[in-house]
């Protein structure tokens, strides 16, 4: 059984997913990825027991980050799972909406790999 922190990253940009995978695997994380909220919910339905933290974008097709967070918080097994938003957005209005949906915290892109590492360890311990 791996003792690595298992992160699910949700982002519709393939380039951003590649950057996140590279940054996180090189720091010892197990990384799974989904391209939007719908794909994330489908993946979590069968793999959710092994996930330690979720990092999600906001602006995505089909299901955005706000709706994803709300859908996860309605499921008892994800009620306490840390969910961080990683977005180009930084307005107080958007942050308030994420807080209301049940997000744990917010990080503004572009991400810094060291700071993301620190944030993930902080919310998973």
């Amino acid at each position: 059984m791996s003792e690595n922190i298992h992160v699910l990253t949700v982002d519709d940009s393939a380039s951003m997913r590649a950057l996140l995978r590279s940054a996180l695997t090189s720091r010892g994380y197990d990384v799974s990825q989904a391209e939007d909220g719908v794909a994330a919910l489908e993946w979590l339905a069968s793999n959710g027991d092994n996930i330690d933290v979720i990092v999600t974008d906001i602006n995505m097709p089909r299901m955005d980050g706000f709706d994803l967070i709300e859908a996860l918080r309605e499921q008892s097994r994800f009620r306490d799972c840390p969910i961080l938003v990683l977005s180009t957005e930084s307005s107080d209005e958007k942050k308030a909406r994420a807080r209301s949906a049940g997000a744990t915290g917010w990080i503004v892109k572009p991400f810094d790999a060291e700071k993301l590492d620190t944030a993930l360890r902080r919310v998973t311990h």
Partner: protein
Amino acid sequence: MRYDPDLAIGEPARITVMQGQVYVGSGAPEILTTVLGSCIACCLFDPLARVGGMNHFLLAEPTAGRGTVADENYGVYLMELLINQMMTRGGIKSRMKAHIYGGANMHSGMTRIGDANARFAVKFLDQERIPLARDDTGGVLARRVDFDPLKGRARSRIVEEVVAMSRPISRPQSSGGELELF
């Protein structure tokens, strides 16, 4: 009443897009303009929504001990910012087409950072499945680019004026990357 650019009278406003900036057309007659050396400007256009925009970036060169790959994080950020702002004005990513300009290698003997910037832009667009309609990059001379965000038309020309050597901006002016806990 919907604005029709073909019936517009008078000169469009000229908007200069500097390194590290993103600008998406407001719907009024505008020309987005920039001068590029090693930097890249990517122009995106959605022909159905008639919305276009431009960004302007320069990737940081690799630092000692960090390999030979330019730092792509900031480039991805500025591309995503452009796409997101296009979407807020009615653009749809799957309909967007791209032009890229710049990426000159203006100083012999130095790292060919212009080539690295152009390669990054082509790779990004390929990964995001955005068709590259025009690629005017490379060479050793600066370019001036003018882009009409309502029509999706661009003009690129070589300029003799000296472009001050740009330093890459690797972070936005506002702080990014910090965790804000709720």
